[in-house]
């Protein structure tokens, strides 16, 4: 018996059930199945409810983490989801795709003992629990302020700004270039990691709050930011990082060489995996190489695998430097993705009919750390070899799409295309224009974009109140 009031530390982090690898590698259903109620309560009861919680500081949107976890421990799920929604309008999304291990969970005091609380899984549990109840609780809105805000881009940053501002009484319109809302959540992240129904649910929640949504509208083309400023009191730009990088090596325009954006957009947004019921075609490939080591590379690799290909992830550093989330790397390994570390493609070779047939690679070794703090990959001379492939997916990164910058005079932009903003407020060099998310930081994470959206919303609100 432990003394009353002196709880024995339970360092057994509760596992979340998953589809077994041999089953899930052949379907597009969600891999991780979520905590059953009892497991969630047990996991929540492990939280020490620290008097000075460090986890909150690890969360870019500052969710009151101990408070919602205590609600789960006490089985008051209604109160729990309410606590989260004070700060986060996309809990079902964040509970799935945030890199919790580097954020809130990294800061958990139990981490040092090896048993940090599974904060992300608990967040997901509450969001899913609420959805399963059927009726989502709607907050009461303040009276309209009469101020209007245009949000450019329907991804995580834009959704956050819209959610925050509508709850402060401002009228909000989101302009989205694609035909579906969600940005990277719908075109980039695969169904098996984030079911599209969940994104749809979160977007519907905003719509019910009164957010106006205009899809198929390209700001910078259909209308400019300046034209929106004639009609709206403020504009928030959250247009993401939608310009894919290529390596500029020979053979890159051969058929079968994709950007990650093309491959994932065909599959996710256009539902290529349901071809021909959905009409956007995808190819059947047998040997796919994915270049890169981030989350996007893992998404591409696991998608190609599910379509029946043998998949190799080709990465120029070692496993230690892989930028992807550990959980996604493990998922990929379990499902049978093969990793070729310390390998750099130098050219693609065609089959004579315009299709990629082989890839010439160089082996690398690691030298001294570079500017990124990671050990620099150095080519090993004479180590060239060829790998047979019939598709290559280039997942080495994206920069912001220049459409908006090039049509908005006076908007200060860095050489790499990112918009310059005041870090605390998200204010750009243009009056009444704010920006946040990947368009400011370059390709980053969903939660960072949401954090930026939150800050910008706060600043926009201040401005609107001063009018």
């Amino acid at each position, binding site marked *: 018996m432990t003394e009353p009031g002196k709880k024995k530390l339970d360092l057994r982090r509760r596992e979340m059930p998953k589809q077994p690898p041999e089953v899930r590698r052949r379907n597009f259903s969600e891999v991780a199945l979520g905590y059953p109620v009892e497991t969630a309560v047990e996991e929540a009861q492990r939280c020490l409810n620290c008097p000075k919680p460090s986890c909150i500081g690890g969360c870019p949107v500052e969710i009151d983490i101990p408070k919602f976890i205590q609600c789960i421990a006490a089985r008051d799920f209604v109160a729990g989801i309410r606590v989260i929604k004070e700060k986060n309008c996309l809990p079902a999304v964040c509970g799935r795709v945030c890199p919790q291990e580097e954020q809130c969970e990294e800061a958990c005091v139990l981490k040092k003992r090896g048993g940090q609380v599974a904060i992300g899984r608990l967040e997901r549990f509450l969001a899913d629990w609420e959805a399963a109840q059927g009726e989502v609780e709607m907050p009461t809105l303040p009276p309209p302020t009469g101020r209007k805000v245009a949000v450019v881009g329907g991804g995580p940053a834009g959704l956050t700004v819209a959610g925050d501002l509508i709850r402060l009484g401002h009228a909000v319109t989101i302009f989205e*270039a694609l035909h579906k809302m969600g940005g990277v959540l719908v075109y980039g992240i695969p169904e098996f990691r984030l079911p599209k129904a969940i994104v749809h649910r979160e977007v519907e929640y905003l719509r019910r709050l009164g957010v106006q949504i205009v899809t198929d509208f390209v700001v910078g083309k*259909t209308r400019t930011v300046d034209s929106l400023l004639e009609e709206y009191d403020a504009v928030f730009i959250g247009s993401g990082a*939608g310009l894919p990088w290529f390596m500029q090596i020979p053979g890159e325009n051969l058929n079968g060489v994709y*950007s990650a954006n*093309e491959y994932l957009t065909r599959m996710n947004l256009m539902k290529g995996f349901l071809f021909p019921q959905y009409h956007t075609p995808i*190819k059947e490939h047998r040997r796919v190489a994915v270049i890169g080591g981030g989350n996007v590379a893992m998404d591409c690799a696991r998608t190609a695998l599910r379509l029946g290909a043998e998949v190799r992830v080709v990465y120029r550093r070692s496993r230690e430097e892989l930028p992807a989330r550990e959980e996604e790397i493990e998922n990929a390994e379990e499902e049978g993705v093969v990793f070729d570390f310390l390998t750099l493609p130098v050219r693609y070779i065609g089959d004579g009919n*315009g299709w990629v047939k082989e890839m010439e690679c160089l082996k690398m070794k690691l030298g001294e750390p570079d500017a990124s703090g990671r050990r620099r990959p150095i080519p090993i001379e004479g180590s060239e070899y060829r790998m047979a492939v019939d598709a290559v997916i280039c997942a080495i990164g994206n920069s912001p799409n220049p459409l908006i910058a090039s049509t908005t005079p006076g908007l200060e932009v860095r050489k790499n295309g990112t918009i310059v903003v005041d870090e605390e407020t998200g204010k750009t060099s243009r009056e009444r224009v704010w920006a946040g998310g990947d368009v400011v930081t370059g390709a980053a994470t969903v939660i960072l974009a949401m954090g930026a959206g939150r800050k910008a919303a706060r600043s926009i609100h201040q401005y609107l109140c001063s009018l």
Partner: protein
Amino acid sequence: MAELRATEMIVPNMHLLTIHAPEVAKALRPGQFVIVRAEEEGERIPLSVSDWDPAEGTLSIVFMNVGGTTNTLAKLPAGSRLPTVVGPLGKPTEIDHFGTVLCVGGCYGIGSLYPLARALKLAGNKVIVAIEARSSFLLFWEERLAQVSDQLHVITRDGSKGLRGHVGRLPEIIAGCQPVHRIITNGCTYLLKRVSDVSRPLGIKTVVSLNPIMIDGTGMCGVCRVTVGASTQFACVDGPDFDGHQVDWAELLQRRMQYVREEMRVYRSSRGEEAVICQGHGHD
């Protein structure tokens, strides 16, 4: 959702749609295109715009029925709603006072040539229009083009109207109106390539409007990349216009063929029958 206001088969297999999309119509400039989805499960395909009316809020498109999406579009009755009409996309064609401009159009490109010829004429150019088809019954908009040009030439493969042959006859037209300062050409990739081949030895700058495979049309997916000179360009945002003498045509033709087999499946199922597509429709 954009309403389809009117639909018409103007010549066999070639269709003219009038679409109500006021924001797009207001912003359109000659040479730009839109991305259209014909149905919820449909693809996003780029289509050149043939005309627009900002006051009415409408734009029109001429296209050839060659695949699943175009076949669905061709069958939609007036009053239908298109789930996606987004644009205007791409850079407008450069319009300036060049002197004498030869505008060459074939197939659906005859339609999108019309606003270009009109704008060039307004800019004070001498505008020569040459349109090409397999036979006279496949020609359209001759009167419209005549109204915005100084000369209108017709080339038919079978000689049923105008010059007999194909764009290989262009040097004769050019010889009759020297000097030609610029050539602008719209139509299928084969036509664009052939016009560029013909004009290269004559040293006349030739602007081609490319139509590669696209998905988003805003520079995000990169499938429309094309080698121009020594660099890779995205046709959707860097184009669709490029210098025809700099384009790597072999690569572009190859890239356009990527999904032919898959497109056939959709096309057949959209027709509910077996169908044969004639690739390149006769530009030998």
